[in-house]
């Protein structure tokens, strides 16, 4: 005989938040397959009804062409920040580039820095200079690019700073961006040419992150568009921005991802709504809450909440009512339907 068979059984007390009494009461007829079929039919009818009445939203996407055509000044203002490396994407950090001191962290925990750069973007080259180089028969543009790249970093910074200051007062006249006269070197030609290229639609194709004919990665054009104010202004008008609980909303008046309400909530409350590490902090909170929810059965106190709140008395009110009426005629308070053996199935069947 093995040592295991001699082991003393472990004794533990009955805990109402962990254990249950086996049901010896009444069983009633139940047609599982019928229930599933009825549920599918009901849901299908409901879905068809909602689709017929409300359809679904499909607002056209923003393209670089539509952006630069509708708001060329915003495009030019964004383009100069891409060229001089001051845009949101240029200063983002991992996974796009190695901008120092921008990674989000909680104490020593700095996951995006640990993960490193995996989708490298050099905004000056990828968004401005390389697309312009793809233009055929453009000696003026080629000369401007050569002049810009041959200049010292200090000279480049002086040109772009001057242009960036002036482009705030830019106007769009006769198909081109007009900025006040200034010492911009080749930058005026570069940004003006890029704006024209964008308005023609050629920049959309040049930005797709692919080195082959087929491409499905829209990281570069999306980040470029998001660096401007055009996209965010449209989103604001559709109540989609972060301070409008945007992640759980949908364009128009359609229900969106309402199940993200708790995730979105954290971005609305202090100190997270002003924290430089808000994204990582919110994710950390949601990770912890998710683990707590999954492991709830193991956590004393939390697992007792259902018993303490007594909402279960509403759910099982028929059962407790039966229990009360059953007890009126007897002194015992055991299970409600043990009086009729014929009502119980031969096995302890479960649903």
């Amino acid at each position, binding site marked *: 005989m093995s040592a295991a068979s001699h082991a003393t059984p472990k004794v533990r*007390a009955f805990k109402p938040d962990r254990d249950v009494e086996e049901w010896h009461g*009444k069983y009633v007829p139940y047609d599982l397959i019928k229930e599933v079929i009825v549920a599918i039919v009901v849901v299908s009818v409901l879905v068809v009804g909602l689709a017929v009445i409300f359809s679904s939203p499909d607002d056209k996407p923003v393209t670089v062409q539509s952006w630069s055509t509708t708001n060329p000044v915003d495009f030019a203002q964004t383009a100069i920040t891409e060229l001089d490396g001051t845009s949101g994407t240029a200063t983002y950090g991992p996974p796009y580039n190695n901008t120092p001191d921008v990674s989000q962290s909680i104490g020593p925990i700095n996951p995006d820095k640990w993960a490193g750069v995996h989708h490298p973007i050099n905004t000056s080259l990828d968004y401005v200079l390389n697309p312009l180089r793809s233009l055929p028969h453009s000696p003026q543009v080629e000369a401007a690019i050569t002049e810009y790249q041959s200049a010292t970093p200090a000279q480049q910074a002086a040109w772009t700073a001057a242009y960036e200051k002036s482009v705030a007062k830019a106007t769009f006249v006769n198909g081109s961006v007009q900025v006040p006269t200034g010492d911009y070197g080749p930058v005026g030609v570069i940004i003006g040419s890029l704006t024209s290229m964008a308005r023609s639609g050629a920049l959309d194709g040049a930005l797709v992150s692919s080195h082959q004919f087929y491409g499905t990665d829209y990281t570069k054009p999306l980040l470029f568009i998001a660096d401007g104010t055009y996209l965010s202004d449209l989103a604001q008008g559709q109540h989609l921005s972060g301070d409008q609980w945007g992640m759980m909303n949908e364009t128009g008046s359609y229900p969106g991802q309402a199940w993200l309400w708790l995730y979105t909530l954290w971005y609305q409350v202090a100190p997270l709504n002003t924290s430089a590490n808000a994204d990582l902090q919110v994710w950390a909170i949601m990770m912890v809450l998710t683990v707590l*929810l999954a492991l709830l059965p193991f956590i004393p106190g939390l697992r007792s909440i259902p018993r303490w709140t007594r*909402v279960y008395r509403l759910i099982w009110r028929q059962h407790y009512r039966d229990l009360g009426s059953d007890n009126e005629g007897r002194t015992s308070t055991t299970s409600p339907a043990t009086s009729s053996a014929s009502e119980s199935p031969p*096995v302890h069947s479960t649903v």
Partner: protein
Amino acid sequence: MTIDTGTPPDLGVAADGSAGLPEDAGQLTAKLRNAALEALPPERMMPDRQPAYVASWIYVFGVITVAALAVVIVTGMVLSVMGPTWWHLSSTGLFVNSLHMWSVEIFFFAMIIHLWGKFFMAAWRGRRRATWITGVVSFVVSVGAAFTGYLSQQNFDSQWISTQAKDGINSTGAGAIFNVTNFGQMLMWHIMLLPLVVVLLVGIHVLLVRRRGVVPPFALPDRSAEQVPTTVGSAPVTANETITNEVTP
């Protein structure tokens, strides 16, 4: 010359499902079959009776969730047949997309009510912890599946969601391999990887419900002291465990 009549050979499997010959008992196939039959005998897998306490509208939300998931999958398959741009260009495609979207809304609506209902029933009691955990994980993975669906729409909404959501994902370091602005990657996650996991988890969850049954009601406080359980849940107490008569909170 013999003629194959198509009659299946006698496999030597006894009517009770056990291996017919002693040497077959060691077969992995026989072991798996026997374990499956022991865990889920037919009358438990497809019951025609249920405990009388299962009498509340809250119980329908579990099956509504499964039904909505079925509609989500079927409508998603129709969209897959015609390709990702179809619904932008065709009124029929837009209608199918609408079916897909509304079935997702109903799926989450029903699942969240189901989850809260099971919470207030403390439905993990009686060896049902795995049922609870698979339910919660199914919900979390479903959120991911829906999220990648929103990213795969190829419209303004998906542009905005991707450029906003990237910050959260990137802050965790996951952006290195999970690029929400890469349409092709998100579409693959949405139509292949995450649905597979959701269906697998929901399948396990439903089988666990079949195996353990619906959790019985709490004993009323004034009765609990005199109710002496002899078993825990619908599964027997393990060999090295026993339960005392003492009731502890």
